[in-house]
């Protein structure tokens, strides 16, 4: 029997199986689309082919209560912090860049959330921002991250608004700026946006769908924060944390939202 954590995010739904030793054993990710229950069903069916799943499943994210299977909903940020602490066993600052949200979380030496902040009501600096720009430029995420490696000089993106950022980029292309330099500018604007959330004074862990799909941005983050890391498959960590939060005998376990 394996426990299943599902993070039903605004763009993608991520599922992770966790064994009795609290190790992640299998991963699956689908687009959330317009029906979170369908997305969760796809995750459950995928795992059910090869594994026996224990119920309830443990959920977080925007669609955390939108599934028909028995579930226990959790706070995504608390879950993510739990998973990061499980891996690093130290106080740290988490910068998580997801589809619609950029989050800063300060985790103390006991693994508890000390402070957190989310982006304002604006998608600039999030995964959606990058997806929209990539779509307009007709560049895939893989190409996007490869292009940035060839940058020779950064160009600065000033616009806070995704739509105006695109107009700004079109202007840059018109003025002869190279695509690699522009992409480096876009990555750096995302890093700058995330650094507005809070002062970062300790070890930094970078997580979320965006760093997972754009490894170059992790390199740039590491340049800004030398004392940092980004674990593999970090977009699955919130789902992993949901399971960890609900393991029996958990000390100081926060109350699940709908328990």
């Amino acid at each position, binding site marked *: 029997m394996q426990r299943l954590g599902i993070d039903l995010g605004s763009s993608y739904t991520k599922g992770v199986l966790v064994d009795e030793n609290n190790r992640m054993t299998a991963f699956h990710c689908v687009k959330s689309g317009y029906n979170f229950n369908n997305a969760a069903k796809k995750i459950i069916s995928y795992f059910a082919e090869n594994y026996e799943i224990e119920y309830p499943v443990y959920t977080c994210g*925007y669609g955390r209560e939108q599934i028909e299977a028995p579930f226990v909903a959790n*706070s995504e940020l*608390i879950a993510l912090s739990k998973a990061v602490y499980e891996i690093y066993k130290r106080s740290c600052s988490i910068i998580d860049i997801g589809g*619609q949200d950029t989050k800063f979380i300060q985790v103390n030496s006991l693994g508890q959330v*000390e402070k957190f902040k989310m982006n304002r009501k604006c998608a600039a600096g999030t995964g959606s921002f990058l997806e929209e720009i990539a779509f307009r430029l007709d560049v895939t995420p893989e190409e996007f991250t490869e292009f940035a490696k060839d940058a020779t000089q950064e160009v600065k993106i000033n616009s806070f608004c995704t739509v105006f950022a695109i107009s700004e980029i079109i202007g840059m292309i018109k003025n002869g700026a190279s695509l690699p330099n522009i992409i480096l500018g876009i990555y750096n604007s995302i890093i700058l946006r995330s650094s507005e959330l809070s002062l970062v004074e300790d070890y930094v862990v970078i997580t979320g769908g965006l760093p997972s799909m754009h490894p170059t941005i992790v390199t740039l983050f590491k340049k800004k924060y030398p004392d940092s890391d980004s674990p593999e498959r970090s977009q699955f960590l919130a789902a992993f944390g949901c399971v960890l939060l609900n393991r029996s005998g958990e000390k100081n376990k926060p109350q699940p939202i709908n328990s």
Partner: protein
Amino acid sequence: MEELLKIMNEKITPEKSDLVKLRSVNDLRKTMDGYFARLKEAAETRNRKIAWCTSVGPAELLYSMGFEVYFPENHGAMLGAGKNADKYIPTAVAHGYSPDICSYLTSDIGAFLQNETPLQKSGFASVPKPDILVFNTNQCREVEDWFSFYGRHFNVPVVGIHTPLSISDLNQEIIKSVADQYHRLIPELEKVAGKKFDIDSFSERVGLSHDGCVLWKKVLQKAKHIPSPINFFDSAIHMGPIVVMRGTRDAVDYYKILLAELEERIDNKISAVPDERFRIYWEGMPLWYKLSNLAKLFAKLNTCIVASTYCNSWVFDDLDPQNPFESSALAYSKLFIVRSDSVKENVLEGLLHEFSIHGIIYHESKTCARNSNNRFGLQNRLFNQTGIPYLEINGDLSDPRCYSEEQSIIAIETFIDQLSGQLTNSRI
């Protein structure tokens, strides 16, 4: 007000939430109905003059001179609570008012330009036509521009008091200046009212206002009790009389009823939020269009918002009938919103302690800079002084387009989880 009461009734429907209904809401309705009936009669018969007044303006002076007093901010709150602000704001914007300025102002002017008002449901033909508009800039400068729109439209006088902003030292010079401005309003008010100013009548109104404010303060202070018999969402509705009937017997009578009910609740161990576990301070404006949703969300999280800057803002207990001008100047310049950040920090620190607060929520209201106190680092300084965790949410008092509900729910739930993880059993 009907819109606000509708929300209150919706909120307290038992099958929708575990929140316990305050019985006094029926008396609140009667009190508010009486106020609007008087206003309607004056608007229809023109038997009494109508003054428009800002929410922390010189209401006592206006009532003392026989005016019926109408408060556009109350109307703004009704538009917000009725979830109609975004229907009207674009009209005001098209007339040159920025969507970034006060959404009470833009929704109110927009509704007026569209010839619509929730008061029509209570039989009003339109908002009551003013004979004079009277403001105090203690809360913000927008009120003067807001009233000036109507002054131009109706061709009636707009007079007011300009209070200094960001006051640290509330000294005699400031009090004298504001008191002098009160005096200077009188000739214009006499002209419009068609009657002479009477100091005894003013003193009486100041005395009634004082008594109403003291009772309102007692109501709010009942929330010091653990668990609290009243929460912010109740107070935001039950504050109606202290906003629009300050200086009347009706407000005094109503708060005696409410206070008695809260005392009874404490005796009978009835709390506003069943199983209250966390006590929160709300800094900033309410989100009028989400009062009901937020009340239910916090109740589900066993969390009671026990105190707020907003509801505390109508406690003018420095009013003194023996000294009506100076005490009015003192009371209305002592207001939280018109004070410097250092004064605000001290006030907040005191309230956090008095109300046994576990966490603070700052609502950064997109169109209300003066009522968003997390814009100049106060939240960090207060955290450093007190160690009490805080959460900032982005929204607006009336314009729902500025609020991301799902994101905010996640933030609020996470904050309560954070408190749950952080607080020791002895503090909860």
